């Protein structure tokens, strides 16, 4: 590619390349992307139209719709800005790479004396030693400083070249390549991947994934069964510790895999990931309550389970009926018991006890207040053990063939940033020329980053060199 710096190439292609490789364009695009991105954080994204109309009115919605601000990160204009940035990065990299690459393949090892004098860091002194003794001393100092070097005899004079961190020259390219890789991974995921949800009732199975747009669906080539779902709480608190679904993958009629998934621990099967996303209770009416029943006359407690509305015998002639169950009991109007939610925040059960069909009495059982109520007419006491409603698990399901490429890009980016910013390309040249019986020494140094640190290390190196090559004098 022709060098297009300074816009000197006036052809159309040249000017185009000049435009797309300009840093001004980069800065302009970065700032434009930053500013436009704000809109999507203020305006709700991908919400149904009525939400926008409610918030911004009819005309407001029309503007939002026209500018595609309701889904701006997928709008053509936002993607076009990103596309321009990518073109900018590609052209810049192609434009700059040959020059950076030359530093690696054709390092400027043996510049002539006049160019040596042009470097910012340089020192020149006379040594009482001859060329060979002085060059031996120079090499010694370089070795002691841990700088490996190349040397060359050059018509009676001695030359040395050393460099460190030359990889820095391709750091920017690696970083830019990483951005392209990440975007590529994102595009691949966007085209060939999908994201959706699936809700499965305990004991049921499904292979239908409802996609994010809530309109399309994907049918998986196998089905997923939810064997059970449970929430575990931190002891003594109402805070959930773990949401766990036991899932089975069913291919044909065969269960090929059974695994428990939790938040942060998805199941991956054939490239499709299943995440624990939500849950809920389908019905508490179909739940089963387990109670510990203890005869007041004395005796061992016995666990009995009873479905809501159902009856169970607790001894030969006594029946227990679960009249009502309230997972989250509160007192409503007129002190009517009611449940505030479907969650087991304050479970309470109302029992009815009959002996030989004859009504004995009713009793409340509270999960969190075991001693609150005891009907004297009933010869048993009851303790809440557990309640299991019929629950469903909400799974987030995704397939993203681009995700590996994205992570590769991320690793490249970290490497690229490290070699760009924390490694500098440092070079040293030494020329020892004969001066009658003695010699003249020229040392030059150059760095492309972190000049201050290099200056002081260069000065230190020169001091050591001078000391070693002038010690014969005195």
């Amino acid at each position, binding site marked *: 590619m022709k060098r297009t710096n300074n816009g000197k190439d006036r052809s159309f292609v040249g000017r185009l390349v000049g435009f797309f490789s300009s840093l001004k364009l980069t800065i302009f695009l970065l700032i434009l992307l930053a500013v436009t991105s704000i809109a999507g954080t203020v305006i709700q994204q991908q919400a149904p139209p009525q939400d926008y109309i409610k918030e911004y009115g009819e005309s407001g919605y029309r503007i939002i719709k026209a500018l595609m601000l309701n889904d701006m*990160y997928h709008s053509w204009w936002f993607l076009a800005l990103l596309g321009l940035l990518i073109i900018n990065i590609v052209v810049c990299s192609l434009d700059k790479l040959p020059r950076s690459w030359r530093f690696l393949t054709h390092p400027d090892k043996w510049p002539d004396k006049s160019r040596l004098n042009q470097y910012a860091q340089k020192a020149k002194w006379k040594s009482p030693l001859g060329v060979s003794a002085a060059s031996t001393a120079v090499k010694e100092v370089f070795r002691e400083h841990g700088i490996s070097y190349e040397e060359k005899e050059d018509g009676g004079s001695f030359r040395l070249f050393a460099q460190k961190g030359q990889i820095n020259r391709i750091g920017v390219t690696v970083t830019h390549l990483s951005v392209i890789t990440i975007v590529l991974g994102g595009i691949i995921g966007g085209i060939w991947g999908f994201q959706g949800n699936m809700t499965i009732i305990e004991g049921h199975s499904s292979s239908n994934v409802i996609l994010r747009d809530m309109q399309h669906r994907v049918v998986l080539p196998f089905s997923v069964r939810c064997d059970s779902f449970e929430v575990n709480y931190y002891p*003594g*608190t109402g805070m959930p510790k773990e949401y766990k679904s036991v899932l089975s993958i069913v291919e044909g009629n065969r269960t090929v895999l059974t695994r428990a998934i939790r938040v942060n621990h*998805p199941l991956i099967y054939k490239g499709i990931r299943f995440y624990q996303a939500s849950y809920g209770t389908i019905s508490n009416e179909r739940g089963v309550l387990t109670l510990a029943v203890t005869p007041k006359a004395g005796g061992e407690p016995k666990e009995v389970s009873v479905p809501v509305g159902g009856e169970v015998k607790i001894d030969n002639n006594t029946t227990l009926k679960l009249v009502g169950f309230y997972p989250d009991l509160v007192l409503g109007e007129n002190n009517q018991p009611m449940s505030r939610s479907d969650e087991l925040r304050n479970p309470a059960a109302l029992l009815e006890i009959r002996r030989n069909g004859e009504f004995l009495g009713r009793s409340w059982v509270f999960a969190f207040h075991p001693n609150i109520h005891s009907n004297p007419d009933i010869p048993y006491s009851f303790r809440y053990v557990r309640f299991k409603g019929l629950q469903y698990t909400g799974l987030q399901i995704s397939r*993203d063939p681009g995700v590996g490429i994205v992570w590769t890009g991320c690793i490249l980016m970290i490497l690229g940033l490290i070699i760009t910013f924390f490694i500098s390309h440092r070079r040293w040249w030494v020329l020892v020329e004969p001066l009658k019986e003695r010699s003249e020494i020229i040392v030059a140094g150059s760095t492309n980053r972190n000049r201050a640190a290099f200056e002081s290390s260069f000065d230190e190196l020169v001091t050591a060199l001078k000391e070693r090559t002038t010690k014969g004098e005195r």
Partner: protein
Amino acid sequence: MGEAAVVHATLDTKLVSYVIFVYLAAVVFYISYLPYRTKTLGRIATGTLLLGFVVHTAAIIARAVISYKLGWGHAPFTNLYESMVFFSWSIALLYLILEWKYKNKVIGAFVVPWAFLALAYTSIGPGIRTEVEPLIPALQSNWLIAHVITCFLGYAAFAISFGASVMYLIKARKGEKKTEKGKKREKEGFVDYLPDLKVLDEINYKSVIIGFALLTLGIITGSAWANYAWGSYWSWDPKETWSLITWFIYAAFLHARYTRGWQGKRTAYISIVGFAAVIFTYLGVNLIISGLHSYA
């Protein structure tokens, strides 16, 4: 039900409340160091900050220990309070390194106040819960620890670049006035005590480099975590988007710095805008916009 076993006024929160006052004292010493510049005052300022930092570190460790003793066992980076405490700690840490490297205590007057303000905010900010709490399932991830550490060290680096930029602009402006007036007054006040423009510019640039690398790591670890927890490494959530906006701004800074002429004042302005974006990413998003990232 009032049965929540959260622990109030634990040792760590008490320690933090002492550190607030120690940092306030450090701020006063660093500011008074500006005009007087005596060695003793400088030593007192650094010593006070160091004392605060040691107690601050102890408080963070104590909080982790308390959480482990309660059987919840998590690193103390899980809500707004804990993140603020860590943000302040990061600023203090990076500043102490900076002071040690540059042997310049003047910068402290512009950086240490941020460590103090972040910490003071934990006790005056609205709705900040200081209790040690168990972790909700989404937060039970090792990515969280990597994410929080990288993000907040990055934010702290940006806080330093912000401090350096403000100093740069003050000094540059006063410098211009001075040349206009033709060096009438010998002493211009504290501006003369600010570090060289060159040094300030370099501090700005270097902290942006470090902040940018850490922010990049923070975004990447956050994406990795999101990919494990929610099945998507990027979902244009407001917090994610704002972190990207911040990233764009500092990327613009680095590209602008790369071309000649974009140094000093102009990059100082970008740095200030960048830090405003950092603060908005951290606090504004949670206070104004709601989203996935609702804990801190």
